[in-house]
């Protein structure tokens, strides 16, 4: 389906024939393309402006305190959404990333609390767990050709169970290195420190996906894996790498979550996964419509969090947040489908 212009119907047609309608189409196409690319950003600004003026939230929404809380709370969701888009770009789902993050949280906390391991080692173990889980997922999906949807769903369930076993269902509170919680709560230049971590990861991922041969290859794999193999792209290895990187970032998400919360609850990570999925799919409608991309994903996260924060501050009940997340996920997937180029859904 052509969004930006009308395809030349017959190549054998004369030049005069197709030179007349083209300028009009192209101008309209360019405007449409521009509107399409930045619709989400405009929508986010509009929502933010609304809550800044809407009387019930006007005095609390547009404050630096609220902005700081909002960004700090959404840091983990943003990081997880960035992890999700890596396999999604290749055309694979990874539903285990939420559970991987939860397992990483619990392992990092448990190693400090139960085994008195130093902070650095515990954090490395948490991230290492994510890398290992990603490597296994990647092997199952790329080497053995298992369905990514089912495989990672199975892995998520398995990890959720292991978290229950490891913690005994209890929240781990005692014996944590205070420096971690300190890092999670402190601000630098008025912005929570965890946000800088997100920014660094986002910039690195953006460079990787948009500005390296590897990233361009990943998009090619997502477009047509068989063609990709025939132009010399290492399809299996690249796809496996995206799973490993995503797992590693999910491990980091776990550590960040521990830093923010200061404790590790026996959670299965679903509460983190679904908003992140919503953001990733929202992001695929923006900046580079039809493709999962880093800036779009960040805008997606901000859009959801701004809207939910505004609603909460206006006095909406607790159920509003999941309803909004769910609704925006549906709209995002619908939009991606309308754009006709979302390959994430087609490989499931």
């Amino acid at each position, binding site marked *: *389906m*052509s*969004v*930006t*212009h009308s*395809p*030349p*119907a*017959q*190549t*054998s047609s004369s030049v005069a024939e197709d030179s007349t309608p*083209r300028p009009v189409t*192209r101008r309209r196409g360019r405007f449409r393309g521009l509107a399409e690319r930045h619709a989400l950003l405009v929508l986010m600004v509009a929502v933010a402006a609304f809550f800044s003026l809407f009387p019930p939230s006007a005095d609390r929404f547009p404050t630096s305190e609220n902005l700081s809380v909002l960004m700090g709370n959404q840091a983990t969701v943003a990081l997880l959404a960035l992890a999700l888009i890596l396999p999604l770009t290749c055309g694979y789902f990874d539903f285990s990333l939420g559970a991987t993050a939860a397992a990483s949280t619990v392992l990092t906390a448990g190693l400090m609390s139960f085994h008195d391991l130093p902070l650095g080692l515990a954090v490395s173990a948490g991230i290492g767990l994510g890398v290992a889980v990603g490597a296994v997922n990647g092997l199952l999906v790329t080497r053995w050709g298992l369905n990514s949807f089912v495989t990672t769903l199975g892995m998520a369930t398995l990890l959720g169970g292991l978290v229950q076993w490891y913690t005994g269902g209890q929240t781990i509170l005692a014996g944590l290195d205070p420096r971690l919680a300190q890092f999670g709560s402190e601000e630098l230049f008025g912005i929570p420190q965890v946000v800088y971590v997100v920014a660094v990861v986002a910039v690195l991922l953006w*460079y990787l996906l*948009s*500005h*390296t*041969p590897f990233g*361009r*290859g990943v*998009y*090619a794999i997502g*477009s*047509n894996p*068989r*063609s*990709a*193999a*025939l*132009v*010399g*792209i*290492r399809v299996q290895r690249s796809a496996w790498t995206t799973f490993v990187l995503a797992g590693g970032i999910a491990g980091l998400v776990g550590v960040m979550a521990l830093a923010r919360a200061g404790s590790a609850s026996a959670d299965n990570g679903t509460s983190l996964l679904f908003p992140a999925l919503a953001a990733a799919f929202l992001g695929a409608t923006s900046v580079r419509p*039809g493709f999962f991309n880093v800036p779009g994903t960040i805008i997606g996260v901000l859009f959801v969090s701004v809207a939910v924060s505004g609603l909460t501050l206006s006095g909406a009940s607790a159920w509003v947040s999941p309803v909004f997340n769910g609704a925006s996920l549906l709209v995002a997937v619908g939009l991606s489908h309308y754009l*006709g*180029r979302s*390959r994430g859904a087609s490989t499931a």
Partner: protein
Amino acid sequence: MSPSSGRMPAPREPVVRVTGLTKRFGATLALDRADLSLRHGTVHALVGGNGCGKSTTIKVLAGVHRADGGRIEIAGTTWDAVDYDARAGRSAGLRFVHQDLGLFGDLSIAENFAFDAGYPTGLAKRIRWPALIRRVRGLLHAYEIDADPQTPVGALRPAQRTLVAICRALQDQEADQHLVLVLDEPTATLPQHESDALLTAIRRRADHGQTVLLVSHRMPEVLSVCDDFTVFRDGRTVATLLDRTPTEQELVAHMTGTVLARTIDETVTPGALAEHPPLELPTAPPPPAPADDADPETVLSVRGLSGGPLRGVDLVVRRGEVVGVAGLVGSGRSSLLRTVFGQHRPDTGTVVVRDGAGRRHDGGDTRSRMSAGVAYVPEDRGGEAVFADLTVRDNLSVAVHRQYWGPWGMDARAESVDAAALVGRYGVRTASVEVPLAALSGGNQQKVVLARWLRRSPSLLLLDEPTQGVDVMSRADIYATVREAVGGGCAVLVASSDLLELCSLCDRVVVLQAGRVTAEVSGAQLTPDTLTALTQTTTAEPAAAPAAAVPGASR
């Protein structure tokens, strides 16, 4: 009910008579007053070279295409060909089994039958499984297919699968009703022993009174099984042979038109052909001299290559030379190219490629072949060559991404400039390089794929059906592009089913049959007629080797 029911045709009486069938596609006349007459209870072969109009005839009979003129008479009912459609054909009793059998491999034979004829249902639309299985078991028994109705179709041997498809197509045949079975290339993808089994079964059906129209490229097969023969050439019927088995040379002579004028001739005698010696067919080429390998002009040297359908291929392609590969479906045409590109690993044999700098490379996967200077344009453009949702620029640079990468990321500007230059140079018609490739026509997509490879300045370009689904204008552009590359010293190996294309593009054409090079043609001998004759006659004995190499148990 069907008009043919209630009327029992006498043996050997014509049941289908097509006269003056004409079909035009744009400027091309695909069928030019063609005639075809099927007698009841016979197996009738419809043969001819590529583009002779036999597929068009089948498609008209199946109602896929509507003819522009002519009459179609089936079992006593006559249609003006212009009014004939799929429903008319079905009610008159034509049943089709295409090369793609349309079976669901995971489902049982019984269910495959039910999808065609409907499930027998009982109370509350419940499926009456016992009734269905009983009926299908009876049908399989009647058609001498040794399989249980509950077996998944995918577990059957290839010949049995085709028989199941035939049985399914004829499942509503009543005792007094006589359907006409049309088989389109049923053996094209079958190994020798499987196709023997299938043909025996088809013969037995005919002996039971089944009328069969068989379209096939394999001459020995049609000769072994058919009673009557109709030969098409350039959309016309050039010969109709009733109740007489001609020789292979005779049939091929009709196809290539070396002997007979383009008139209907029902009284051909074998003697008439003997006076005109058939085309002088070159025999198997002498094995290339061993010195070729060391020759710096040799870009590709293939020795004793076996694997997949290939059974020992020897081939040499020199610098600045275009070598064609002709052969029927299943002859190993595409496999040869894929193996040279490192996509398939050969069982035995060597493939040595010389890159632009003169270094020799052997073995390796796709990536090492690419670095050795090999480029490959696959047959299935949509499935294996393009990235439809990525931009034209992406599609052009996907094989050279690394050259734009620096410490500051991808050099987007240089990439766009180069892409625009390539679009201009190769005459790609697109609004801009930032348009998704899917927005381009097939011909322009193919130009992009070619440009993607030619920008790498390959020493060897492999083309598989380079102009399939490409419009006439783009086709000319693509030929010009290939010639230009050859002028620059590139060696080209092109596989195609379009014999005219091979003749106009190639210096030399090798003919593959059952995975072997059986002939090599060049110079004045390089004509579509020679190639038709060479691809369709058996100069080698393909039966022995494949039967030994493909054990039936593994299928």
